[in-house]
């Protein structure tokens, strides 16, 4: 393992790459419902490399990438509808064993280093799913081998599940907590022996930048501007946000300017929809599905219809990078246009 890794330079990335044919130009998950089930095809290449964190430190990751020369963390956002057949070909370009798992849906079995495998499965239940590498658990998942799959109700373009509250646009956020010591142990093929201590916090692979920083507003780097994280809408643009926690920490998700409608946690639809400004996000593949309603901020006076506000985690350790740098953590912007 080490020998192989010594022979090549790792790919290095300024931040995680957006790479999904399933994303529209806006970064929204685009979707047109169908009357008939269809077949969805996706090819992944398991690759490795370094991603530069907000404090300038390069941290090792692996990803379900879109080609051999990229590193995509998280992997491409996938979307299908109930009844669809999903074919995924995974090319493992590394020397280590990996797999592809969606809990309750599919397990590829071992994909040995240097080999490829195509798996086929049917998605039967609408909702939000994390796909991930379940080998060497939890390390392969934490080091970047994860991504989001959205399954739409059959024939529907505007519901989380049949009969749910409706939306007009949707996003997926995959969150992660990064302990660079663990990542380096994984790079070396060793099992981390230290207590997990997250040092960086990401949403769809990125962290926040703020005015005055050279990377502020760079959508490739700044999670406040990245197309797949930043919420943009006008009054009435009800927005489904699928939040999937690939990391090991429980978190507190806090939305500014509007309460969200809380539809589901860990894939379980809630009988009563509560309106919340802050919600507990369970760890280790936990999830939340919420609708951000894009209503006039109810306590604004005079009332306003435009503005920019944060979504950030309220366990404020997540708002830092490298033990400091408040504002460079797990957050994004909610823009009222």
């Amino acid at each position, binding site marked *: 393992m080490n020998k192989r890794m010594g022979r090549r330079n790792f790919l290095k990335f300024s931040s995680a790459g957006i790479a999904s044919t399933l994303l529209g130009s806006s970064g929204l998950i685009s979707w047109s419902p169908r009357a008939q089930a269809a077949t969805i095809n996706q090819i992944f290449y398991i690759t490795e490399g370094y991603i530069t964190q907000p*404090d300038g430190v390069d941290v090792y990751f692996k990803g379900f990438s879109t080609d051999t020369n990229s590193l995509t963390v998280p992997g491409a956002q996938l979307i299908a509808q109930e009844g669809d057949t999903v074919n995924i070909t995974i090319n493992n370009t590394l020397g280590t064993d990996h797999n592809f798992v969606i809990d309750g849906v599919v397990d590829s079995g071992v994909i040995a280093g240097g080999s490829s495998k195509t798996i086929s499965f049917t998605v039967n239940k609408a909702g939000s799913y994390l796909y991930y590498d379940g080998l060497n658990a939890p390390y392969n998942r934490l080091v970047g081998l994860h991504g989001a799959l959205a399954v739409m109700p059959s024939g529907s373009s505007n519901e989380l599940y049949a009969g749910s509250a409706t939306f007009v646009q949707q996003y997926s956020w995959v969150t992660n907590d990064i302990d660079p010591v663990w990542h380096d142990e994984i790079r070396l093929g060793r099992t981390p022996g230290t207590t*997990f*201590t*997250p*040092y960086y916090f990401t949403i769809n692979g990125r962290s926040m930048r*703020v*005015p*005055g*920083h050279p990377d502020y*507003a760079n959508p490739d780097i700044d999670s406040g501007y990245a197309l797949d994280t930043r919420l943009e809408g006008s009054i009435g643009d009800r927005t489904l946000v699928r939040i999937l926690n690939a990391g*090991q*920490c*429980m*978190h*507190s*998700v*806090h939305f*500014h*300017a*509007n*309460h969200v409608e809380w539809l589901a946690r860990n894939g379980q639809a809630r009988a*009563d*929809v*509560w*309106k*919340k*400004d*802050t*919600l*507990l*996000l369970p*760890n280790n593949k936990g999830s939340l599905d919420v609708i951000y309603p894009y209503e006039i*901020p*109810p*306590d*604004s*006076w*005079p009332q*306003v219809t*435009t*503005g*920019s*506000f*944060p979504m950030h985690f*309220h*366990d*404020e*350790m997540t*708002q*830092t990078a*490298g*033990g*400091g*740098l*408040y*504002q460079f953590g797990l957050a994004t*912007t909610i823009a009222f246009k």
Partner: protein
Amino acid sequence: MFNIDKAVPMMGMGGGGGGGGGACYTYPDAPATPGEVTPDVTFDRGIYMNGSITMDDGVSIEIWGFTDGGGGMGGGGMGGGGNQFPSPAMRVTEGQVVHTNLSVNGMMWLHTIHHHGIEPSQENDGVGHYSFDVDGTYTYQWKASHAGTYFYHCHTNTVLHAEMGMYGGLIIDPPEGPGTLHSGGPTYDVEAIWACDEIDSSWHNKNWDAGTCGGDEGFNSLNPDYFIITGVDGAQSALTNPAVAVTMNRGQKLLVRYICAGYLPQRINFGGLTATIHISDGRVLPNPVQVTEIEASSAERYDCIFEPTEAGVYEVSCDFLDWVTGAVVGTARTRITVN
């Protein structure tokens, strides 16, 4: 409207809260409030950076907070409100237009007020990097639209400032006034505010701008050694301190406004009593929910009605949970005594 792209980051200004240092990525300003009107109610808040609380083991821990009265010079009690911890509560009535005047001596440090759960315009939301960190006096203008429990806290270098204690309660009463939780909702005879929080004393000796320019201040890892309820040590004092512990009679209704004021997840157990949750995060639930304990995450609020029928002493425990393992890392306790 306000354009964040025009904000000027402040680099290398003088530090405070112990002196030295230089801030990065702060945005000092104190503009006029857009669309300012005559308010129905006004709160004046200043800053103190030299408070302390004494824990049950005799250890004194530095605390920062907001004063009542607008003393902005950093001295203790200049505004007449003293160094209260938590900071003095705000209580308003649904429908009121509120002014929160925050005065900060920007030569010494920067702060904001974010009214958590209140959803005003961008300028009045109190998040430094989306508007400004107050340098001088700014009037936050907002309208209280939904009855329930909120809290306010500083949103400058928040990871440190909220941990240092810069928060206070915020209650919106329905038009019926205190004694009714929300219009059409339950009444109550006795009221308690339990803001459960953890303290990592190793963070309580830093400058106000610690970490803003980089460097490892340990802010990624909170390792608390004290656990408090509404500013009172939950090891022993909160069991009997009348500001926290509840004494009531059978036949009375108790409202507990529970605020998860720390960073770690919490699990509060009501010692055998059943709570009926009517409101969470300032929004009435479609159907009230009966529980014997609540698992909450940072900054959630739950408004709970108790109607005990049996006399007794009920010990309430709030466990603070490791964010990775879920293990209990500490517990704060208080009591409900029913006569």
